């Protein structure tokens, strides 16, 4: 079976240059490693909606969800089973997939994929229930210092952006906290905070913004180097005296499996950032409260390398 696959791959590679001229000549499939309705899925559907336009790829992109285990299932599939022919592309979430590959137990690393372009950046925020006694990060840290290991707070899972933020907070504040990973992703983690099952939580800025707007939670700090346009009143962690950078910010974008023909990668890297800049895309993303950050292939590669380095250091102690 393996040799057959290898033979097929070679055949495709030989056929590659000729076919790349009129790539793409049929619809593309984009794998999203989270369930339908989640933030990544929702944004992926918006940013790819103009793909069929003549000035974009000229072919539509269909979203296929392969959820499970914080994204591991989908990225394993993309790295090992997807056809590297340019018609199967995938959505990435950084730091998630890089952190998971450093931790091990998966069949991919940053080298298994080729970045194409980045569409969004969603920082993590620290939230507490609306009636919580905590009003600043200092309150939280002081309580945690008096009660080591007893401060329960939720997040979307292990080795995803929220968990990275939690580890950074523990390191920077020098406290021991009880991080409770949720099996229902960010939505489940948010419900746990609102219902008072946990004392606080790390969550996506976009989701927290809505929940705070509805009066269900308070947002105490942003895990990013600068304040967000959506939350100009909420200070960053650095402003509150904790040395935390933007390593946990959830970058979302498109990548392809390694082995995809270079011509295809070039074509995508050239077209996709412009597709993200489409006015209709921007309007819909803004309406949905999803912060955009368009980055080109080279910029994404640099960002991946930086994350790889930071995360290796951060996760070394675990």
């Amino acid at each position, binding site marked *: 079976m393996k040799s057959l696959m290898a033979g097929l791959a070679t055949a495709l590679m030989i056929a590659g240059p000729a076919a790349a001229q009129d790539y793409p000549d049929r619809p593309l*499939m984009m794998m999203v490693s989270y*369930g*339908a*309705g*989640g933030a990544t*899925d*929702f944004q992926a*559907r*918006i940013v790819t*909606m103009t793909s069929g336009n003549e000035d974009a790829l000229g072919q539509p992109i269909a979203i*296929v*969800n*392969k*959820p*499970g*285990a*914080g994204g*591991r*299932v*989908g990225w*394993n*599939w993309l790295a090992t*089973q997807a056809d590297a022919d340019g018609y199967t592309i995938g959505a990435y979430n950084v730091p998630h997939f890089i952190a*998971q590959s450093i*931790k091990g*137990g998966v069949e991919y690393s940053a080298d298994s994929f080729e970045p194409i372009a980045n569409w969004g950046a969603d920082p993590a925020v620290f939230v507490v229930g609306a009636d919580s006694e905590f009003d600043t990060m200092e309150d939280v840290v002081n309580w945690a210092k008096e009660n080591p290991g*007893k*401060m*329960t707070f939720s997040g979307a*899972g*292990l*080795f995803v952006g929220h968990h990275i933020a939690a580890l950074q907070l523990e390191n920077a504040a020098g406290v021991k906290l*009880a991080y*409770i*990973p*949720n*099996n*229902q992703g960010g*939505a*489940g983690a*948010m*419900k*746990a905070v*609102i*219902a008072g*099952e*946990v004392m606080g939580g790390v969550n996506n800025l976009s*989701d927290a913004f*809505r*929940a705070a*707007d*509805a*009066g*269900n939670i308070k947002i105490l700090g942003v895990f990013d180097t600068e304040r967000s346009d959506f939350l100009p009143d909420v200070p960053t962690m650095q402003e509150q005296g904790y040395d935390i950078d933007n390593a946990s910010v959830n970058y979302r974008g498109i990548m392809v499996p390694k082995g995809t023909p270079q011509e295809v990668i070039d074509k995508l890297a050239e077209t996709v950032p412009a597709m993200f800049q489409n006015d209709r895309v921007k309007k*819909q993303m*803004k*309406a*949905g*409260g*999803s912060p955009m950050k368009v980055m080109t292939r080279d910029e994404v590669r640099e960002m991946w390398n930086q994350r790889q380095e930071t995360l290796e250091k951060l996760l070394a102690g675990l």
Partner: protein
Amino acid sequence: MEFIGYFGEVFQPVSFLLLLVGTIGGLILGATPGLSPTMAVALLIPFTFQLPAAQGLILLGAAYTSTVAGGAVSAILLKIPGAPANIATTLDGHTMATQGRGAEALQLSFISSAIGGVFGVLLLIFLTPLLAQWALAFGPSHLFWLAILGVTVIGTLDSNSVVKGLLSGCIGMWLATIGFDDIMGAQRFIFHPELSGGINIIPALIGLFAIPQVLTMFARGRVPSGAEVIAVRKHPIGAAIRETLRRWRSLSIGTIIGSTIGLIPGVGGQIAGLVAYDQARKFSPERKKFGTGHSEGVIAAESANNAMVGPSLVPLLTLSVPGSPTAAVLLGGLLIHGIFPGSDLFDNHPDVAWTFINSMLIGQILMCIFGLYVAGFAARVAQVPQSVMAALVLGLAVFGSYSVQNSMGDVYVMAALGIGMYFLERFGFAAAPLVLGLILGPIAEANFIQGAMIADASVGRTTYFFSGVLNLSLIAIVVASIAYSVWMELRQRRIDRQEQNEEAAA
């Protein structure tokens, strides 16, 4: 009573047309094996990009309502449950169809769906704040006990023997552990990369229910096709309405259980139908008829799964937290138009909120009318010769399994589970308890792990899991449910023994 003012919006020409399209389209999508309500609604989202917010949501609301009911069509006629919500419908519904009573089963299911559904939406309209608190009251420990309560149902579900039922449930729970575990990310029983995502519930449902039936049709071999044609009886709609109302006990059990359990985030929708079916049987004087094509089974299951539709949106509309996968997709539909669910929705966009809710109310009724209209024709599916039917169902099973994630792996999983189930059925095991194990296993496990982590950091595991009114009430119901099953089993044995003695004496 604010909502009445917005009924006019629903009856605008374009809105009403969308409502019709959503309802009819939803029925067809729902009846297609492999297309769960979540997928169907996700497929429709791009069509709402160009519409004003209220009209977009009319389309989505109508589609959500009718896909849930449409799932009953394939469950009854083909024995392929469209989604976990329709599992309980197959138990009596498909048996009725094989007896030539498909039209009756479909009529009962649409009428009870509509009654349950309207009740659920009315709850959403009038009791939302109360329901929101109820939805939030269930933390990890309560969800764990709720899953255990579901486990106690396993033993008596669609199986002649409690031991075999429990054993089927254990196999299902084991199957559920395959793949990455959702919280810790540990790999379990992954012998092939296709299994790393675990067993997806939709291919599993198709394989476990449809494939053994296909194999049985093949195994019967060369029976002359003319001899096996079932006479499909016509069934007057009036009689179906009278029958549904006569079974008021099952109807109200289904409706109440569906709407109360259905709104618990993350759990309710999947088990509401089965729990309602089981409770309706326990309270029915004709409990022995359940599973043999009894109308109460269909009524309880279908009223429950549509009663769930309205309340399942409560956490989304009030707290902006989607309580089910379908609610998560609807959240996307709202966000695209820049509308944030929560207080913002009802304060600043009441036209959108109430038009959406009203469209679900009217959608329930339209769904019922269309459903009743086609029931008579659809039921003739049973007249298709078995050899043709087997090929048809097999084709739909492959198509449905593949379409979930465009994966051949899911098709192999479906086939393997189906063949395994064929042999298990010959030894008296049943698919329903196995599937319940598959659904409940991960719920119990994930909530136990989360609860234990919270408990270790706070009050300790014993206090966390065994104190509080809700925990203790759930434990009491678990104990009562087990005691009831044991008592029924013992009584049944005594009756059987008496009958044997009487026969021997005679």
